[in-house]
């Protein structure tokens, strides 16, 4: 039961998505993988918010990970990436909480002009740590019950979220947020039989 990343982003009326703040907890990954994993989590969060309609929620499964996405009516969106054990209900409750607090810190008029480097929102990292703990997560679900889980759209892969004609491989190739190393990492990881690649 793990949470890996928590992202807040702004989706403008033109559909362009800008990351406002992201927190990561990647200690369970290998030292040398963390950089790439982080880039991929940011990349995934961005494309998911881009492809999620305003005022809707979804949970997208990708291998053993699940990305929970929520984009509000006002364009503020959040993504939390966890493992398959992490409860969907807790993740979405956490997103509500984080987006509410972010709105208190920065008003909606600021969002279009905010730069990620200027955003001061340490709560994001704190929440990511705090809700790693299943006990905390459990407590939260007991307090907040207003979430309507039936409205969460479920997808089995990221590919399923993409628009017609879009391919994840192409998006990865085109992405500017991913370093060359991360792209190679993606290609090698895609070949399932890893030991044969090496030898």
């Amino acid at each position, binding site marked *: *039961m*793990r949470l890996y990343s928590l992202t807040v982003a702004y989706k403008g009326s033109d559909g362009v998505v800008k990351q406002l703040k992201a927190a990561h907890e990647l200690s*369970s990954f*290998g*030292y*040398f*993988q963390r950089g*790439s994993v982080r880039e991929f989590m940011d990349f995934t969060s961005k494309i998911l918010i881009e492809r999620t309609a305003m005022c809707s929620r979804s949970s997208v499964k990708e291998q*053993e990970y699940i990305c929970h996405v929520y984009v509000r009516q006002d364009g503020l969106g959040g993504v939390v990436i966890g493992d*398959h*054990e992490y*409860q969907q209900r807790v993740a979405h409750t956490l997103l509500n909480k984080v987006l509410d607090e972010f709105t208190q810190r920065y008003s909606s008029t600021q969002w279009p002009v905010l730069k990620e480097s200027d955003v001061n929102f340490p709560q994001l990292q704190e929440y990511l740590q705090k809700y790693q703990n*299943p*006990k905390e997560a*459990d407590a939260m679900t007991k307090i907040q019950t207003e979430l309507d889980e039936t409205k969460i759209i479920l997808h089995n892969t990221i590919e399923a979220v993409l628009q017609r004609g879009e391919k994840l491989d192409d998006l990865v190739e085109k992405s500017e947020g991913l370093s060359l*190393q991360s792209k*190679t*990492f993606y*290609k*090698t990881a895609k070949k399932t039989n890893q*030991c044969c*690649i*090496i*030898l």
Partner: protein
Amino acid sequence: MEDSRGPRLFADLNHAFRKDPVIDEYDFLPVTEPQNNASPLLLVEHKLGLELWSVRLLFRYAYNRLMTWRDRNQPSSFIDPQELTNLTRAVLLIQPDCYTAWNIRKELIDNGDLSIADDIRLGQLILTKFPKSSETFIHRRWIFQRLVNQCLSSSNDSTASADGHHDNGGALLCMDGIDIALGPDANVGPNVNGGEAGRRAGGAKVNAALPLESSRLLAENLHRELSVCERAADSYASNYYAWTHRAWVVQHCFNCSLRVLLGELERTQTWTMKHVSDHSGFHYRQFLLTSLSQRASRLHRQYAKSLSSLIDAEHDFICDLINSFPSHEALWYHRKFVFHMMMSSSTQQPLAEDSAAVLNGDVLHGAVLKSDGQKRSRLEHHSPNVLKQEELDSVRKTVSQTKESFQKTLAKRYQECSSTPIFKITFTVDRRCTPPDSHYDPAARDIVRVLTAGSLATGVRVYLIRIQLLDLAVQSGVAWSSCHQHYTSLHPCFSDPASGSGSPVWGSLVILSPALHQSSSMFFRSSC
């Protein structure tokens, strides 16, 4: 022509380990061809990275040299022990399942050319990259067995007179001694009492007699080994290799010392809470509980703890988890195990009860406990029937209240199972006895298929199977059919499982295989 880069990469690797002997993690970096004329080995913060293109070259070089040297059919050039140590290290870091390399290291240890501490460190490092490497675990068992034997062989004489009051002779006394020597960093439960202090004194005396070097190594490494297993289990889901190894360490190195069993029970609680869908951790707890149940009277004598209070606590723990984290199958399986244990430890003679009795060969010993229990737990107050009713009520509540459909399904399934008699059959398939060419999994499936079909004689090529059914243990070499006859006579409903009439409920069929390629537990049932 040999690629000249092989020797250089090998030298680079050795240099990295000379420069930093405490490298604690390594990985292959996704760089498929050299970017510039720089070494593909990266060393930062005790982490070693190898660019992918170099891994293959390095492996080929080290492996070919090692195998040419090893090939007894052709004359080979002399390789000094240090070089061999380095070559095997290079091979194993890349392909840890190369048992020839591990065997060469065993020989190096036997000859005194390789320090056990270094070898243990290498295995630990490999498990950070390959947490599921079975050969690595097998090799580690060899090392620890060797350390334990060294400790035992030289201390047996001195302890022979003192071990009268222990049920397991000198070995047990000795291992308890080691356990106590580790006291300060051991994960001890809160119930250490006066009896413990008495043991402590005795243990320390014994410990002084052990050969210094090997007992020190053993002491240093045993508890670390438990952490190594935990880390491996953490980095790969359902890592039965790691848990099986951990159970082996507890059994063979700690000799199931109660102190360690209780410590482990406490320690793995956090782990299982964080991995609610991973049955492997719960399986380990089941091992701990079963081991504790076999030593229930000592548990009571030395820790003033009753087995039933432990089972009770485990039941509360698992029910809590089920409520907090709905829809995880593993949790329900564990609950079933705990419930069986509850039933059998509250029942003197499970067979004499009505049709709702729970039969479980593994935990029969637990029943003994009841006679000398003073602080009676809930479990001990109630008869099996009352307990069972309580359990069924609680599950019924879950069924009616839960909103999650899968949770409901699981609860219903559990309800049906616990209202009918359960037989638990445990097969232990010895690795040496499985045909070398067949993987374990098909064999396991075969057993299941054959059992359900009722034709026990065909299709199974397992030569040595230990069956525990009720308190019946049929040992080595007994043919399947005779086992079958044996329990057919015991319980008529076994006679023809396939036909609808009087066929038994195959409540849970757990197939376990320590140290095998695959360990799977299966669960299925049919109506009575």
